[in-house]
């Protein structure tokens, strides 16, 4: 909470420096994010992938791994969704969508598990490897999308549009032109599933134990290698599904470079929510509101939308420091050195 207040303060000062009235900007922000059904739909549309990538980061973090490869896992999932969405001749929409979403998830999972295996088997730091895998994903999908088999003729490196059977239906009852789609329900279901997984299942228990103390887990008979790889895989699955949501529900095609930032946004979401799935739902909607409100602010005032990125960064910094202010309260810690 303190971090949010401080970040708000920073934003106020910056806006004032630009010679705009912070109150005016705040009111535009508010109306642009939840002032009407249209802006509310925009907020939820922005929040949908953030819920999934936030969960992706959280599952990894609970197992003690920092998965900052959500960006790349999302892109891989998005590409696979576009591939199957354009090429699979399936007449039944439910089956087609299901196959695309699941395949995107599996692709994201496999991408993430590369880093998981390298960490668990070779001890190579997952942070470096997920960063490298992000770029490998951007570059290789850029190669693939330019192949004649995928590429829609023209100057822009994008695939053909996916078949209508692969569309995630848009929630047009909220607002006629919204891009908000059934992916929202997938994300909501994922929140519940991840909560149950972490809090109520054996695997979830193992993930949390490995995160707290890998050495003790090994003595307790938990396979650390298997748990780490699975935690990365589950995270990658969620990020891959987020990619499918973007393609099947919003863009209808894969384009290179793919719209950027949901993976890193997920880090902010998970941090602020302290890796709690229901907290992630709330913080993702909060960041979704910042994004949709920020777009409105960009249009009607002199304040560019990048302010939102700055606010996100400031929140991350403050949250990282806030953790420590709490932790430094007197407390017995068993050191494992």
């Amino acid at each position, binding site marked *: 909470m303190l971090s949010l207040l401080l970040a708000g303060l920073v934003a106020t000062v910056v806006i004032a420096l630009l010679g705009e009235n912070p109150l005016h900007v705040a009111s535009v922000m508010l109306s642009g994010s939840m002032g009407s059904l249209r802006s509310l739909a925009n907020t939820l549309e922005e929040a949908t992938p953030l819920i999934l990538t936030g969960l992706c980061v959280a599952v990894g973090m609970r197992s003690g791994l920092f998965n900052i490869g959500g960006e790349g896992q999302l892109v891989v999932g998005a590409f696979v969704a576009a591939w199957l969405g354009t090429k699979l001749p399936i007449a039944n929409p439910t089956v087609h969508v299901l196959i695309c979403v699941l395949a995107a998830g599996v692709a994201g999972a496999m991408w993430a598990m590369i880093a998981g295996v*390298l960490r668990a088997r070779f001890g190579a730091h997952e942070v470096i490897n997920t960063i490298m895998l992000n770029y*490998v994903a951007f570059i*290789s999908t850029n190669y693939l999308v330019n192949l004649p088999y995928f590429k829609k003729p023209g100057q822009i490196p994008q695939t053909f549009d996916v078949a209508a059977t692969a569309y995630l239906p848009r929630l047009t009852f909220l607002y006629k032109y919204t891009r908000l789609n059934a992916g929202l329900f997938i994300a909501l279901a994922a929140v519940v599933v991840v909560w149950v997984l972490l809090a109520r299942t054996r695997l979830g228990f193992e993930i949390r134990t490995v995160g707290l103390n890998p050495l003790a887990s090994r003595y307790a008979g938990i396979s650390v290698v298997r748990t780490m790889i699975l935690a990365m895989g589950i995270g990658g699955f969620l990020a891959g599904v987020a990619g499918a949501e973007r393609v099947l529900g919003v863009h209808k095609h894969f384009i290179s470079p793919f719209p950027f930032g949901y993976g890193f946004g997920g880090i902010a979401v998970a941090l602020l929510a302290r890796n709690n799935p229901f907290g992630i739902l709330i913080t993702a909607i909060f960041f979704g509101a910042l994004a949709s409100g920020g777009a409105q602010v960009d249009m009607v005032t002199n304040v560019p939308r990048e302010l939102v990125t700055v606010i996100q960064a400031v929140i991350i910094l403050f949250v990282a420091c806030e953790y420590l202010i709490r932790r430094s309260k007197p407390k017995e810690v068993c050191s494992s050195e």
Partner: protein
Amino acid sequence: MVIVVSLALATIRKSVPLVFASTGGFFSERSGVINIGLEGMMLFGAFSGAIIAFFSHNAWLGVLAAACVGGLIGCLHAFVTIVLRANQIISGVAINMLGAGTTVFLCQVFIHGERSFSLGSQDRLTSLGPFLPLTYIAFGLALGAALFCYRTVPGLRLRAVGEHPRAADTQGVKVNRIRFFGVVASGVCAGLGGAYLPLFSGSFAKNMTAGQGFIALAALIFGKWNPIGAVAASLLFGFADALQETLQGRAHLPAQALQVLPYVVTMIALAGVIGRSIPPGAIGKPYEREKPEA
């Protein structure tokens, strides 16, 4: 023959920002602080270098500003991770986002509503021989870093603090002070690497570093956390980039195969398949004395 010479020149030009930033990464990581914020620091350097050169019509002033701003961001990373002992990776991620957001934001403030701007010819550096003067500075800096770290006492201390801070502390070395220096130095170097980009290409554009901070990190790892190794890796990655541009549209080899090279070889090196890269012993761990003296 002409093509070989031009390829060699392009290789060196492409590797300059990588040499700067990986030398920066070296100072920070060898002192025990992970710096994945190099990308953000470079972006800050690119913007501040370009904007100061643009307004003052003096490129060297821009270079100075980039070094200062880079150092300042280094201070931020150092303060958050060393003084407050926050997670070094989180701080790095935040700095990258801060760089991506703030530079575009400020660009719009100074250059009304634009996300890019061009430098006039009087705002740019004059070449010294075939290269910009910053090129010689970059390679000199890397050599200096190597001599500093392996031939001087403060350099030994920097490495000691990164390998085994407690042992260094018992020898009377001020662990956190040296780490602070290491991180600030990395910001200065990354800022200079960033400044090279607009001063070479003649314009600043949104997110113009395009992942070079991460490639520099890759060069550092591939070069086994050693400045000379990092220079060699930077040259290799620079060569891949130059070759990719030269071959564009001429060969059947897809450009992406060369673009992907730095990332793939880094992952292989880290996994230890060919000549394992081993990180400094205490990297990523904040240092505090067990109990402050009562």
